[in-house]
């Protein structure tokens, strides 16, 4: 029983130590600049109105010269109607990654509505309409070079939007609490939306006291998510709602928990923490060259966790109508890793989402001419609820998959290639991005008769939760790093014994 005692004794000390190194750690250096810039910005914001008149068609007419890649510098954004204001401090806020998470389920609708009416930011309807436009373009143009065609569409459509996004594209790497650049290229739209919410937080929280508070606690991802869920539960319990309303209101955090996403995340965090402390203790027992050598080997593993590229532009909405491609990609990424049961759950969740989209899109197309809310056509609230639910399920299943992978890696003696895992992360994030695009265009169709102030918050909500979903998945991926490290050390020890 000596082993038991040893692990029990290890216990409490570990926890305290690791908490400091939790992935939500953020560089302190970035935050102090924020409050100053805030005072600059506040009056500007109040004066600015959302450019209601800009429609997708008008956006279309803007010069092709605007065809900048998403990586626009902040200088160029300054020239574009004052976006530079945001550029100057947006980054510093966003680098406090916890802010993203802090907004989960926090009366989002109001927050976003406020954002949209008070900020001079093109509405999500436009963004979303643009996506549809792209689709058409792509459909009509000969498929000689679909990729570049799409690039162009993005450039065209987003002269105003695009520059804002471009400015934000550099944020992807900071949005992840761990600071690793898993996804470098894309998710522009998602960030764009997330940024808006951030602004509103800034408005309601001058000096970012709350946000800083969050950071100081060094909360783990599961803690933050749990708190978000509890807030939602409280809201649900306190708000008197009719039954019909209850059905359509979707709470991401609560759904994520229902799909056991929180539990799996918590379990994964436990394994990650324990592995991390084991790695540390192994390193302290080594000395001299041996230590240097092991460090090098571990650095090699670490590299695989920071060099993943995900190009959002490759995400093609037309693709993968029924989720079968995702199924294939997943099985490919997981080949040789024995977690088929969990992978199947994930594929099923994805197929389910795809068939929901198909289901919600079809009757609407057939009855496009008929006025009013036919029974067959899904309401915007229903589409929104389905979207949030699908995102929550897919994310929970993704976390579950990472958790199962962690367990499998820990007890199997075979080596697991970190690049496989990063590939998997890319596949998952792409799927999240793809789904959010599909759902929002579905929303746009379903809400063609709705006013902007009904539709916009819903679309924004979907993009925001998709952005959060992608962050959670990437954070979960990062949790695997110490697990691969300790697995490597164990294999090393085994081979040297022989």
């Amino acid at each position, binding site marked *: 029983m000596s082993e038991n005692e040893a*692990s*029990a004794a290890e216990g409490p000390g570990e926890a305290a130590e690791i908490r400091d190194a939790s992935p939500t750690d953020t560089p302190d250096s970035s935050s102090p600049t924020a409050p100053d810039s805030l005072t600059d910005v506040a009056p500007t914001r109040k004066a600015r109105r959302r450019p209601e008149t800009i429609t997708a068609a008008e956006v279309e007419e803007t010069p092709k010269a605007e065809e900048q890649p998403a990586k626009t510098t902040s200088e160029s954004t300054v020239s574009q109607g004052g976006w530079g204001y945001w550029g100057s401090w947006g980054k510093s806020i966003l680098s406090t990654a916890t802010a993203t998470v802090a907004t989960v389920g926090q009366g989002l609708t109001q927050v976003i509505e406020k954002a949209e009416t008070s900020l001079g930011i093109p509405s999500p309807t436009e963004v979303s309409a643009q996506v549809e436009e792209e689709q058409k373009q792509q459909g009509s143009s000969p498929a000689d070079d679909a990729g570049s065609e799409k690039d162009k569409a993005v450039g065209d459509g987003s002269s105003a939007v695009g520059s804002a996004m471009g400015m934000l594209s550099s944020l992807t790497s900071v949005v992840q609490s761990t600071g690793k650049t898993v996804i470098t290229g894309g998710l522009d739209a998602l960030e764009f939306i997330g940024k808006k919410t951030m602004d509103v937080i800034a408005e309601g929280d001058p000096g970012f006291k709350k946000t800083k508070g969050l950071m100081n606690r060094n909360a783990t991802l599961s803690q933050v998510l749990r708190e978000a869920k509890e807030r939602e539960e*409280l809201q649900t319990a306190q708000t008197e709602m009719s039954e019909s309303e209850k059905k359509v209101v979707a709470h991401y955090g609560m759904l994520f928990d229902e799909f056991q996403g929180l*539990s799996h995340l918590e379990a994964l965090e436990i*394994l990650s923490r*324990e592995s991390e402390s084991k790695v540390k203790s192994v390193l302290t027992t080594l000395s001299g060259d041996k230590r240097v050598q092991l460090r090098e080997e571990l650095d090699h593993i670490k590299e695989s966790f920071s060099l993943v590229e995900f190009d959002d532009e490759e995400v093609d909405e037309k693709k993968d109508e029924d989720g079968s491609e995702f199924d294939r990609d997943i099985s490919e990424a997981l080949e040789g890793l024995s977690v088929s049961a969990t992978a199947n759950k994930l594929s099923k969740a994805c197929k389910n989402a795809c068939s929901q989209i198909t289901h919600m899109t079809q009757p609407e197309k057939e009855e496009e001419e008929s006025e009013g809310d036919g029974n067959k056509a899904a309401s915007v609230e229903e589409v929104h609820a389905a979207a949030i639910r699908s995102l929550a399920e897919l994310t929970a299943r993704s976390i579950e998959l990472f958790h199962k992978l962690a*367990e499998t890696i*820990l*007890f199997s003696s075979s080596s697991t290639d970190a690049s496989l895992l990063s590939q998997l992360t890319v596949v998952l994030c792409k799927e999240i991005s793809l789904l959010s695009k599909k759902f929002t265009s579905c929303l746009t169709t379903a809400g063609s008769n709705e006013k902007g102030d009904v539709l916009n918050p819903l679309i924004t909500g979907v993009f925001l939760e998709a952005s959060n979903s992608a962050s959670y998945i990437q954070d979960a991926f990062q949790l695997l790093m110490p697990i691969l490290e300790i697995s490597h050390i164990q294999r090393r020890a085994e081979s040297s014994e022989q």
Partner: protein
Amino acid sequence: MTAAPYNYSYIFKYIIIGDMGVGKSCLLHQFTEKKFMADCPHTIGVEFGTRIMEVHGQKVKLQIWDTAGQERFRAVTRSYYRGAAGALMVYDITRRSTYNHLSSWLTDARNLTNPNTVIILIGNKADLEAQRDVTYEEAKQFAEENGLLFLEASAKTGENVEEAFLEAAKRIYQNIQDGSLDLNAAESGVQHKPSAPQGGRLNADSQPAKEGCSC
């Protein structure tokens, strides 16, 4: 998942431990789904289940960690014991070996959880009386000697399954009420949500149920 009640006031973390094939996952499935799962795949690492039940008039959410019984997972599953408020230690009444291993499971449970963790011993497959290999009496005695709650149950028929989870929950709740379980301790395995709307008022004279348990 519709109209789920979210107004529970406590969350208890449970773990289910015991040899492979004693029916841990089936007990959980019977408890959460009220169905018997005939072909249950081997659990890898840990799986989860949740259910809200009423304990002395309070809504309590049980978050159950169903661990893998296979020896090769043991190193991994030990990581999950910490912070459990309750532990279901399961053996199979038709296989003596699963009973014989209990002391090893108990050692793990004691070492890796806190002193207040409530452990309930469950003799599963009570429906298979004809193949019984472990008597009720000896198991009860083992439980008494080690200060465990004890029940024989059947995941197949559902007999005593609900009770098993409930008995442990009652004991945990009792420990909270008499102050022996400190909710502020990091590893208590209990989360209290004072802000949640309260259910029925707790009666000070509520009797701790004694039927079928060896306390």
